[in-house]
């Protein structure tokens, strides 16, 4: 029988996820042996038409990374959804919006103003901003429409599985692909990673004190980080307790706090809120002012707790009364 067809696609992302595939190293050859890659813009020269010409469901599985924030990305993922048996949200951006998701703190106009006018060094006397349509001498030129709001993949199309991480750890990719090839898949909607938080596999776990209460939160650049001791116990905002394991504690092993790219475990509804709740609970004070003072060291609540997941927040995005019918 013919090899199963596989497609890779990238939306709003940094390309790191593509790297992750390449990071499979020699294993990638096994993959190539086992499957037939029919679409991979970053690596192979297939065109949109090629996909359009396939029959619905012809592609066994599409790995889509990146958040969705433009009409083009939307069309492409809808197309791939139609043509694919399985769609896997690949990496933090597809899974939860990722870093691009932080754009939901602003609206499109604010971003355009920033990028095309305000950034120091921008020279743009003619005040040109991208037009969706432009009458060029050669004829009408068009650009995709950039959305006001960044969405996760499953906010645009139904997603079967999620491969978390920024980028997804190689071992998880391998496990996922093997599982797919063997057809030994968990129920649809599953996140293809262990359902327990990072502390479980963090080498620093043993060093946790009996009680984790904190009088002061610190930021990595402010302290000499003890390479053995639990980072949270050192007052660093490590999100290990809130974040799904599976990365092999890459960051904490590298003496850096976990920032949460793997997202929450299945019992959690809103990652950032749980993170906020856990962190606030660690404050070791009952005095209103002192509480204020201690928590003021959490300089950027949104960026800290929703670094990779703002679009999945129950608020979804920065509130815009005007555009949202509110007064």
């Amino acid at each position: 029988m013919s090899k199963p067809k596989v497609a890779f696609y990238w939306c709003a992302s940094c390309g790191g996820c593509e790297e992750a595939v390449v990071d499979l190293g020699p294993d990638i050859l096994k993959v190539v042996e086992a499957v037939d890659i029919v679409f991979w813009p970053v690596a192979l020269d297939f065109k949109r038409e090629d996909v359009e010409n396939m029959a619905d469901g012809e592609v066994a599985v599409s790995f889509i990374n990146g958040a969705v924030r433009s009409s083009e990305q939307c069309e492409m993922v809808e197309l791939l959804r139609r043509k694919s048996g399985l769609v896997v949200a690949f990496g933090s951006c597809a899974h939860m919006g990722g870093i691009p998701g932080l754009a939901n703190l602003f609206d499109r106009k604010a971003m355009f103003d920033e990028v095309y006018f305000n950034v120091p060094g921008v020279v743009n006397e003619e005040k040109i901003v991208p037009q969706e349509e432009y009458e060029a001498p050669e004829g009408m030129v068009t650009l995709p429409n950039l959305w006001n709001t960044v969405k996760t993949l499953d906010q645009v199309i139904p997603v079967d599985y999620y491969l978390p991480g920024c980028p997804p750890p190689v071992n998880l990719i391998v496990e996922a692909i093997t599982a797919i090839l063997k057809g030994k898949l968990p129920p649809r909607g599953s996140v293809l990673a262990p359902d327990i938080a990072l502390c479980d596999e963090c080498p620093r776990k043993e060093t946790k004190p009996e009680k984790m209460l904190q009088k002061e939160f610190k930021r990595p650049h402010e302290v000499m980080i003890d390479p053995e001791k639990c980072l949270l116990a050192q007052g660093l905002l490590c999100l290990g307790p809130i974040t799904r394991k599976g990365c092999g504690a890459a960051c904490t092993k590298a003496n850096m706090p976990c920032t949460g790219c793997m997202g929450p475990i299945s019992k959690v509804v809103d990652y950032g809120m749980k993170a906020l709740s856990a962190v606030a609970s660690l404050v070791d004070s009952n005095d209103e002012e002192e509480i204020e003072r201690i928590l003021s060291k959490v300089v950027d609540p949104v960026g800290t707790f929703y670094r990779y997941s703002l679009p999945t927040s129950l608020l979804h995005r920065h509130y815009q009364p005007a555009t949202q019918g509110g007064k």
Partner: protein
Amino acid sequence: MSVIESKSNGTPKVGVYVCHCGINIASKVDVQKTVDFARTLPNVTVATEYKFMCSDPGQEMIQKDLRDGKIDRVVVASCSPLMHEPTFRRAMVAANANPFLFQMANIREHVSWVTLDKNAATEKAKALIAAAVTRIVLHQPLEKTRVPVNSDVLVVGGGIAGIHAALTLAEAGRKVYLVEKEPTIGGHMAKFDKTFPTLDCSACILTPKMSAVRAHPNITLWTYSEVAGVEGFIGNFKVQVKRKPRYVKEDLCVGCYECIEACVFKKGIVKDEFNVGLSKRKPIYIPFPQATPLVAVIDPLTCAQIKRGKCKMPCVDACERDAIDFNQKEEIKEIEVGAIILATGFKTFDAGRIARYGYGKYPDVYTSLEVERMVNAAGPTAGEVHIRSGEKPKTVGIVHCVGSRDSKTNVYCSRVCCMYSLKLAHLIKERTGAEVYNFYIDMRTPGKGYEEFYEKLLKENVHFIRGRVAEISDWSTIPQEEGKLVIRVEDTLVGAVRRIPVDMVVLSVGLEPNDDVDEVRRLFNVSCSHEGWFLERHPKLAPVSTFTDGVFLAGACQGPKDIPDSVAQAGAAAAEALALIDRGYVELEPNTAFLQEEFCSGCRTCVGLCPYSAISFNEEKNISSVNGALCKGCGTCVAACPSGALQQNLFTDEQILHEIEGVMNYV
């Protein structure tokens, strides 16, 4: 509990029962509409209404539907769960259903009684019903845990209420610890000469009870002691009692007064607390002749030996029984009791707070308590009533409601002042033959024989002027007023402002909560009213219980009371305590936290949060573990758990999230 489990036990069948509560609910909420609405909600198989769901027929409706298998979980929309949740849970048990497959929607206290517009009320009621229905779908059967009850009781406060409660319990064969912070029991009642309305002698009826306490084998009496700490919960309190050193061995002293005679100070040097400052006492003293225990006490603040460490200590030589011991130290006693009765009493209003009455400024303005001591045969003046000059007053003004019924001080009526003012009026007239004026707002004499006593006073030609006194001053406008205290008052019956010159003024001060009420309240974890009176669990149905199970109230600490009421309430509190003890066990709400171990990463966020150390870290499993017996079910750890691995029975994340959806989505 996850959705998977909760949904696995077949599709739930919810019964919704809406109560009219007579017209309490029905007059504001369109009950029929809410029922029709409930029918439209998912999983609802029965929806109906009844006049009084809490009545037997009402409960029977629920039980029948349960037995007939029409429903497997119940929502009752009626009053507050704090009111009838136990009732309906019992009803479910009676029908062999698990009592925790039950949820109440509070559409009376939270809807019909507080909403003006009928439509708004009905809509709100719908929302609360929807919330209950959406949440109950996720309820799980739970079991209450039983813990045995320690049969000893702690009574705090040795006034008449504490004494009566202690004796009642002791008579019933219970071991009682009676803790009093003063050197003697007896409280305010011991200070009085006569009691209204019968005018029988206070000491004659109180002192026998005091000695009974002292003598009773089941009562451990700790005077000059205070409760320092309380742990545990209903049936199983651990209490620490601080026993202040009195520098006199209680078991040896026989109260012979020799030491007091011998003291280097030949006469009193400090204000005598018992005589509210009308006389002075020595550093070593016995509060009053009938003090119980009749044991001397040394006041460390004034005793030369204790203060300066140099005194000939004649008291020591004088004591044949070597009872005096300057090396006594404060000691902490640890006791375990099943129930606690608070009878901490009251303090009188500080008359100095009302400047215009001149207390503390004009020497002949007295408080009622001072006069109580004055008229007492055993008091500082041996029953003689005279002003500072030593003369008998020819005219006396008694000012009612001092510190009561006044938005600037206390709004409430202190309940006892009218009657004790009448009593004092009678006694003063009896002792001095003076003209006595009572200045009152309203004469409040509800009680057996009270109004009759008032009648009696009227016949004794005591003057009654209806009006609140504006001011008392030495400002004279006419010769007759020279050298007198002038009481300015609007006589509301005559409709004129009057100035009445008197020799002596008695301020009938109201009753106030003790100064330390806040510490006491926190110590025993009971709530207070605005004014600081301990809050009963229900003003009508649970007047001696508090919101902390196992802690009961007796006497004026719950609100102003006269002696009969205090005694009655003390009896009630004792009975409540006995009922608890004789049952022998208590059932604990199962709303405790539990851990879904497979999801716990061992991050330890929860461990430091539990105020009861119910969460510990299980070293070999390398995850947290919850001790259900210690958990009181606040849910703080659940809110903090970063993995949602900790959950709380009856308040799981999902139950609450569903409740939120329910309350918002259907109306």
